[in-house]
């Protein structure tokens, strides 16, 4: 149980088409992450799956049943929101139990499920508190707990970590990963964050302007992006795109990831001047202004000392260079 099929879902707000025909298949137990730039329709797609928004056309099937006209509470889903969205007037315990109470679950069963969920998320000390008396991280754990007690077929997360600070984000990310392993539930997760997407996902769906650009495992997307957009979106720092007219190539654009460039002081493919160097300890990002290739980012592992103004040569790894055609697709 817990599969999801989306068939040609379109969504328009008035004349503005936000989702332009989405097809997606999620099998039971999978962790799927939606990524894409702001405003591309990730949240809208998630809300359509949840039933909070009606699609203009197309079907949503959960476990093979068409749920297009089923209200959110009956779809067997649970959702965690970016802003926690806890009920301010209820205690943590009642926040978690409300959905079950509405569905008419017996009190002892609610009690049991809250106990398990709060143990899982270390929420026991806070059960009698109200949301206002909790920290941001605790609130988000309550929100996750509220989803867990429903024992849904499908978990939906809409940028659950983006209101948390960096350290807490890592912890909560780990908790979500463990939760997925323990519950073996199907999860759909929306994020802006590369790292979240790469670390959590079984499958990443890259969205852009209401369309799916590519679906694949994190490594598939990293190693063989289907087009320029995906190549630029996955990986950090961003892939370098070089206008090939200057290089005398047949393809429209050449792409090289910063980590697939090597630098040398004496010789190499592209001569350039160091514009800026970022020292991160584990690695160093150099920004090179090259005569032929334009501004390049180079990622060097470990410490590398380069003063701005120095001349360096950058050389791409030919096996890991991507060539894109005029339509943005990868040329084989």
């Amino acid at each position, binding site marked *: 149980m817990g599969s999801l099929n989306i068939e040609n879902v379109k969504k328009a707000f008035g004349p503005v088409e936000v989702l332009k025909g989405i097809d997606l298949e999620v099998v039971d137990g999978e962790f799927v992450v939606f990524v894409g730039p702001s405003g591309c329709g990730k949240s809208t797609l998630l809300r359509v799956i949840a039933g*909070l928004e009606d699609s203009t056309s197309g079907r949503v099937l959960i476990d093979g049943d068409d749920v297009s006209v089923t209200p959110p*509470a009956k779809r067997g889903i649970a*959702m965690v929101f970016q802003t926690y*969205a806890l009920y301010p007037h209820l205690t943590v315990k009642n926040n978690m139990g409300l959905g079950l109470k509405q569905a008419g679950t017996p009190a002892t069963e609610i009690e049991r499920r809250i106990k398990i969920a709060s143990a899982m998320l270390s929420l026991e000390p806070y059960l009698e508190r109200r949301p206002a008396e909790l920290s941001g991280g605790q609130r988000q754990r309550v929100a996750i707990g509220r989803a867990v007690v429903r024992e849904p077929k499908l978990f939906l997360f809409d940028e659950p970590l983006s209101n948390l600070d960096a350290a807490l984000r890592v912890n909560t990310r780990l908790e979500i990963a463990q939760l997925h392993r323990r519950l073996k539930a199907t999860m759909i997760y929306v994020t802006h964050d590369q790292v979240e997407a790469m670390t959590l996902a079984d499958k990443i769906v890259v969205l852009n302007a209401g369309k799916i650009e590519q679906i694949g495992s994190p490594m598939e997307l990293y190693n063989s992006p289907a087009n320029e957009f995906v190549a630029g979106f996955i990986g950090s720092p961003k892939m370098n795109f070089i206008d090939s007219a200057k290089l005398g190539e047949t393809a429209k654009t050449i792409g090289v990831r910063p980590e697939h460039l090597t630098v040398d002081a004496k010789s190499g493919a592209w001569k350039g001047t160091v514009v800026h160097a970022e020292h991160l300890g584990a690695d160093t990002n150099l920004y090179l202004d090259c005569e032929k290739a334009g501004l390049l980012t180079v990622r060097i592992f470990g410490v590398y000392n380069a003063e701005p103004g120095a001349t360096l040569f950058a050389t791409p790894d030919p096996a890991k260079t991507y060539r894109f055609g005029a339509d943005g697709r990868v040329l084989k």
Partner: protein
Amino acid sequence: MSTATHSLPRTIGAHAVLLTYTAIALFPVILVIMNSFKSRAGIFGAPLTPPTPKTFDLIGYTTVIGQGDFIHYFQNSLVVTVASLFFVLLFGAMAAFALSEYRFRGNTMMGLYLALGIMIPIRLGTVAILQLMVASGLVNTLTALILVYTAQGLPLAVFILSEFMKQVSDDLKNAGRIDGLSEYTIFFRLVLPLVRPSMATVAVFTMIPIWNDLWFPLILAPSEETKTVTLGAQLFLGQFVTNWNAILAALSLAILPVLILYVIFSRQLIRGITSGAVK
């Protein structure tokens, strides 16, 4: 108090301005209350002095309580004000929720239409309202007043409340929907408590004109049975002789209930503001 943000002259200046304003605002009220405890000669002889043992007199209050059915008038005013307030807040909040929450054809037009009443005084329609009340047999009933005041208060209530309701987090309402709460529960249990401060604001704005109104009670419900306090006080305002003691006493008494309602609502207002700040 930190000295960086509060210099002494500035604090004194601010307080001087506020105290002056308070004095000006309170002056008529204090004058009314003061003089209501004085004899007629005391009122005209020295209107600005507080009652002395010589001028102190409860004649105004005894007249008010003895003559006419003042307790009853009070009751009428209170019933009309509280009932109208209740309906204004209930229907105003519901309309505001619908306008801010649901997307439907003509939403904006509907919002504008409902807000139009802010600019057009309801008294322009007095004749039509009177005809309507006569036709429906509601003349000389409190129901007539309640209906008119509800209509009078709704535009501003809808306008203010829909602005505030737009600010209530969508995620919270959606969380409620996923947990299976009905739209009514979402409205009453999640949204209303969050907009309580703005409800209190609307309540205060709505309540005062209703309590003080003389126009509609005079036209729609002048009977002895349905008189309100403001109308009742006219009893002492004769064409040739005016019983000033009684009028001042009636006015002083009329301040009380509205003051109590105000205190209740302003508490809500302050509680709403501080609870928002801590969260």
